[in-house]
């Protein structure tokens, strides 16, 4: 290596850095001139970058800088966004928790409404619900059940810790009176 090498290395790295796309040997030679052994210079440059956060890589004979793969999480850091579950999702979750393993048609029957497609997905994304095999009945419907993450989130040791219907009623959670019937104006009868 002559003492012009550092200059050539500097030129190479600047050219590769500023390029719009990975550059082949011919492109590089055109930009930095025919200085010595280009492949050898590129190898030197690559090894000088190897421990860094930016690395020099060859892909199909073309060279470019890119970020070191192990640092990807810094480039796309994840930020937590707290979201409130929809009422449909909370209801579906409770049905699964009380009736697992339960199929989707059963959930719909218990809730009295058709499930929107996203509801179960949200619960699975939250990590609270998992598919739990197929039921061996006609149509072999998929069953759903809660996960250990569900128990952990709600601080439950087992599913048996869920309050029963009687408990819910005692807590006032079932006392939703149906609307009173309208009085009939036909008189007579009460006397």
């Amino acid at each position, binding site marked *: 290596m002559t003492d012009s090498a550092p200059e050539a290395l500097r030129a190479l790295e600047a050219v590769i850095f500023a390029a719009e796309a990975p550059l082949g040997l011919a492109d590089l030679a055109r930009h930095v001139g025919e200085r010595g052994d280009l492949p050898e210079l590129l190898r030197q440059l690559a090894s000088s970058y190897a421990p860094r956060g930016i690395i020099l890589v060859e892909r199909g004979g073309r060279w470019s800088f890119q970020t070191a793969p192990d640092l990807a999480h810094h*480039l796309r850091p994840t930020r937590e966004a707290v979201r409130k579950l929809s009422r449909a999702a909370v209801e579906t979750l*409770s049905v699964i928790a009380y009736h697992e393993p339960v199929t989707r048609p059963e959930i719909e029957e218990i809730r009295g409404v058709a499930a929107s497609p996203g509801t179960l997905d949200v619960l699975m994304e939250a990590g609270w619900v998992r598919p739990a095999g197929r039921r061996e009945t006609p149509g072999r419907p998929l069953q759903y059940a809660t996960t250990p993450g569900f128990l952990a989130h709600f601080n439950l040791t087992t599913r048996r810790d869920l309050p029963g219907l009687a408990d819910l009623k005692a807590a006032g959670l079932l006392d939703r009176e149906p609307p009173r019937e309208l009085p*009939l104006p036909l008189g007579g009868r009460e006397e």
Partner: protein
Amino acid sequence: MPATGYSLPDILRHEPGLISEDFEEGPPRSMPGAAAPPSLILQLGSWEGPLDLLLTLARSQKVDLAQISILDLVEQYLDFIRDARALSLELAADYLVMAAWLAYLKSALLLPPEPDMEPDAQEMALKLQFQLQRLDAMRDAGQKLLARPQLGWDNFRRAAPEGLSTDIQSRYECSLFDMFSAYGGIQARAQHGVHVVRRRPVMALDEAIERLARLLGQTLDWAELARYLPHDLADEGYARSVLASSFVATLELVRTGRAEVSQGAAFSPILIRGRA
């Protein structure tokens, strides 16, 4: 005493050709003298206005602007304007306004100072010199800026960086209470549904018509409808059904001419009798 009472900045900023283009941030500036139509504007050489011309003349004195002779400069400017007029060059109005102001400044500087003169001639001269120095400094600075290495010419950034982004990971909120009350809500809904759907003991309309017709056939006197209803019905729901069906049966019998119905006033007892 010349009639030019304008302060220097007013004169310098005045450019008739652009008078219609007022600035968003200020009210229209008042114009000394009549507005010259834009056609009168003449770019004298490459000067950008009278201050630029003054600066060029000042530089021809080949001394530091701080040491410049304002009186000499005034003479140079007035000579220049005279020459231009001799050549029948049309001058933009602001060059002439500047000439008038400089002529005034010159006389004020040469005459014994008047104690009550505002502004003071020395101060005006000083301000002119300051403005020349400042403009010169800004020109110089601009050239120095341009002489610096410039991004996109002397150095470069990456042409196509990947960019950074942030992945949003959702964390769902749901309390145990939310879940229980949701389940309670489902159960309550289901119970309410039973009330609506379950088949209840009812007296069918056909049955009521048949029964009422049979009872009415035995008497032609007016009597309260309630008297024809079965007594001691334990099921309140069934009792209501009997009442409703019997009332509708009454209307049906009246419609078919087999009974008459009468009510003295709203909510008073309904009277009924058969027709032979």
